[in-house]
């Protein structure tokens, strides 16, 4: 393998192939911080041609590679593999084309999500998907994991905004699918590529659709005595025929954290805060807001605060968007789950999560996309305490099984990564996993593109894994 590193060094200038332990340390982990692996080397391409060259080299050498953007994956999607390299895409940051007439942007994979909307803003356009990490996460990573955000019910996920992809596959083949048109001919290859979790290859150029910025917003914040009341309010809004751009709920622990971290101002004594936002032409919003306010007012809130201006709206969102990092201040470590349940069972799901957390003696904060049933329990633990991580993971596992039992999904937007390896085979049967593995092999016959993510590395699905993580058992992983 040392030889492979030598040959790799010949592909790029010396300062762009990192092999020293102190250089590699920064790449050992992503936002799933409980897992760390030191890669053989990190390659830093500056052009898409160099990415292709690197992937073809890996194919010839049968050398595993993990593509990495900003390393914000919450499921361990960009966790390195010990016998492979990391291809760091942070220098591929060009917006190659921004066409306001066609409402598209063509970007390299290392472009940061929020930069797209920033570049489009002078044209009154924006890029809709807005994961909480939008200020740092990259479009390449968003495509690989089909990232979501707060606006998915109305606008969909990353895949719904990707019109074209040029990619290098695990075979070294370079393909171009779709393009500037919002329609496609033949099977939807772009749709299939989104959410591949790096198992198909690396996106080199991505064509994104841009949408006109809504002219007008109406954002309401309401505090409730109980989570059930907040859940009932969501049902009432949904049943009314309104189509809000966002419906979010934060529970008491998340509220406490946001208040402590960014001095967010929430109604006191509430077990839940609901945020609902309408958007559209001012004439439409003027009519819809009257209906929305009446529905919220009738849902027994402790207090209801419609944002009176843009500043108040931003303040509401600042509290919500900072919730994750705010909870981080309450606890040395946490795991974020992102299972999905049918919306009508949200109240029941939250009650059961609360019970399970109490039984396990683990604290759990909830911040979630109520409009689409996407839960985000933040399970708090102290990694220095013996057995704490195991208890947190056990609770996470029970929550995921509950989501599957309720007819939902183990992941709404974070992906399977290494974190939920055990649970994909609970959601899909052996034939379905086999079908996915066959697909993966078509894109990556040597199993070198992000191996060990989504499916256990050995090949056969591990149906009833207990205890150690499969990768940990294989001696590939270590935990802090």
């Amino acid at each position, binding site marked *: 393998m040392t030889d492979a590193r030598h040959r790799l060094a010949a592909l790029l200038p010396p300062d762009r192939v990192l092999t020293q332990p102190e250089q590699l340390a920064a790449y050992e982990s992503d936002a799933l911080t409980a897992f760390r692996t030191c890669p053989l080397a990190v390659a830093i391409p500056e052009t898409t041609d160099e990415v292709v060259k690197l992937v073809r080299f890996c194919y010839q050498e049968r050398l595993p590679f993990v593509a990495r953007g900003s390393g914000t994956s919450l499921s361990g999607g960009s966790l390195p593999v010990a016998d492979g390299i990391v291809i760091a895409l942070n220098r591929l940051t060009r917006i190659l084309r921004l066409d306001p*007439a*066609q409402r598209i942007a063509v970007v390299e994979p290392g472009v940061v999500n929020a930069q797209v909307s920033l570049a489009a803003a002078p044209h009154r356009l924006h890029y809709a998907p807005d994961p909480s990490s939008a200020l740092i996460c990259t479009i390449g990573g968003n495509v690989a994991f089909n990232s979501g955000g707060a606006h*998915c*019910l109305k606008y*969909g*996920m990353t*895949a*719904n905004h990707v019109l074209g992809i040029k990619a290098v596959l695990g075979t070294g*083949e370079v*393909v171009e699918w779709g393009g*500037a*048109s*919002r*329609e*496609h*001919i033949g*099977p*939807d*290859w772009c*749709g*299939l590529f*989104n*959410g*591949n979790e790096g198992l198909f290859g690396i996106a080199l150029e991505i064509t994104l659709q841009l949408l*006109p910025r*809504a*002219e007008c917003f109406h954002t309401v914040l309401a505090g409730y005595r109980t989570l059930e009341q907040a859940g009932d309010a969501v049902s009432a809004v*949904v049943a009314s025929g309104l189509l809000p751009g966002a419906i979010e709920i934060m529970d008491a622990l998340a509220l406490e954290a946001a208040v402590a971290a960014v001095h967010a101002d929430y109604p006191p004594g509430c077990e839940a805060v609901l945020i609902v936002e309408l958007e*559209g*032409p*001012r*004439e439409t919003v003027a*009519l*819809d807001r009257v209906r929305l306010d009446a529905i919220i007012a009738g849902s027994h809130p402790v207090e209801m605060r419609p944002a009176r201006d843009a500043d108040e709206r931003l303040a509401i969102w600042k509290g919500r968007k900072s919730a994750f990092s705010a909870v981080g201040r309450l606890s040395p470590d946490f795991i974020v789950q992102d299972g*999905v349940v*049918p*919306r*009508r069972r949200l109240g029941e799901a939250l009650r059961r999560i609360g019970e399970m957390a109490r039984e396990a003696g683990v604290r759990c904060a909830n911040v979630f*996309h109520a409009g*689409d*049933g996407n839960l985000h329990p933040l399970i708090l633990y102290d990694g220095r305490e013996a057995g704490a991580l195991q208890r947190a993971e056990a609770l996470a596992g029970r929550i995921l099984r509950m989501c599957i039992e309720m*007819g*939902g*999904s183990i*992941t*709404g937007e974070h*992906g*399977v990564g290494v974190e939920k390896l055990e649970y*994909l085979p609970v*959601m*899909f049967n052996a*034939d*379905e996993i086999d*079908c*996915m593995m*066959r*697909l993966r*092999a*078509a*894109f990556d016959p040597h199993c070198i593109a992000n191996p060990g993510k989504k499916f256990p590395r050995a090949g056969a699905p591990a149906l009833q894994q207990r205890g150690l993580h499969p990768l940990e058992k294989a001696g590939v992983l270590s935990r802090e």
Partner: protein
Amino acid sequence: MIQVSALLTPTTPAELAEAVRSQPRVLAVGARTKPRLSQVPNGATLVSTRALRGIVEYEPDEFTFTALAGTSVREIGQVLAGKGQYLPFDPMWLEAGATLGGTVAAGVSGPGRFRFGGVRDFILGVRFVDGQGRLLRMGGKVVKNCAGFDLPKFFVGSLGRYGVLAEVTFKVFPAPAARLTLKLTTSGVEAATRVLMDAANSRWEPDALDLLPDGKTVCLRLAGPAPALETLSREVLTRWPGQALSTESAEAAWSEVREFRWAHADGVLVKVAITPAVVPSLDALARSLDGTRVHVSAGGNVAFVSLPSSVQPTAWHERLCALGLSGVTLRGNAPLWCGVHKTAIASAVKQALDPQNRFPSTDD
């Protein structure tokens, strides 16, 4: 061209899987509203989904429904309307009896795809039969899910060449309180193209934006609360000359589009993926082939092109390829694909899903 050796009519997903396993060469058909898609050169046993129909699950509160592949889009529309909901991409060939499975496999969306997206943006999950005759589930039944690979999207436009759909789950939206269609008259295709671009970038959030085959009439549909639409429509009509249509005239106009009544009944019908910028070139191409009609939909992102039987498909294909565009033939005798290139990955994925080539080749 077509050799029908038998027609199987399974009534359940399990029977569909059995039907696929029972034959060496299989192609699924629905209501045959896009007949070119099932004309395959080497013949195949046709499996009809006409008895595989019905809504399996409909949860209005969840904004989702699941239906068997042979269910007509018309029936689905009626059931959804009963709960004040709809499929925003406007399924086509409603009156002609198009099925949900056929709509997915053909990948054809109607004018409403402009606002919130097409079939690919509303499909959530599928149960399908792969080439090994296995009944498999992919995707999910909730509005947000990224577990596994997104094969449901891949099946949009896959023409039954990679698998046969048994059941499909879709996201739906609450129907807007009202709709208002404006017919805008322009001086010609260049001006009409500018209207498409400007209206798409406007504050009005149009619901549909189509350019009719005359090359100069733009149909712009607004959707939302009725009083708001009146104000918005006045503003649109200040910008461009035109008129608001009565509910009946609007329904007639959109039904003409949806049922392809504007197209030659016996000619070739092709779906072409375009951008607004190429609309004038496509219009010029159509004019160079006598009698060819073009309907531009989704704000200039898709064109449906109807060739009279007098036009040679080869001449059409050459010119379309020269514009760098790609298309798929839905009706009539013309090559299935135009401007679609073979890739190694397409063969590999075909091999993965259909190792015995039970379904027709992806080439034709």
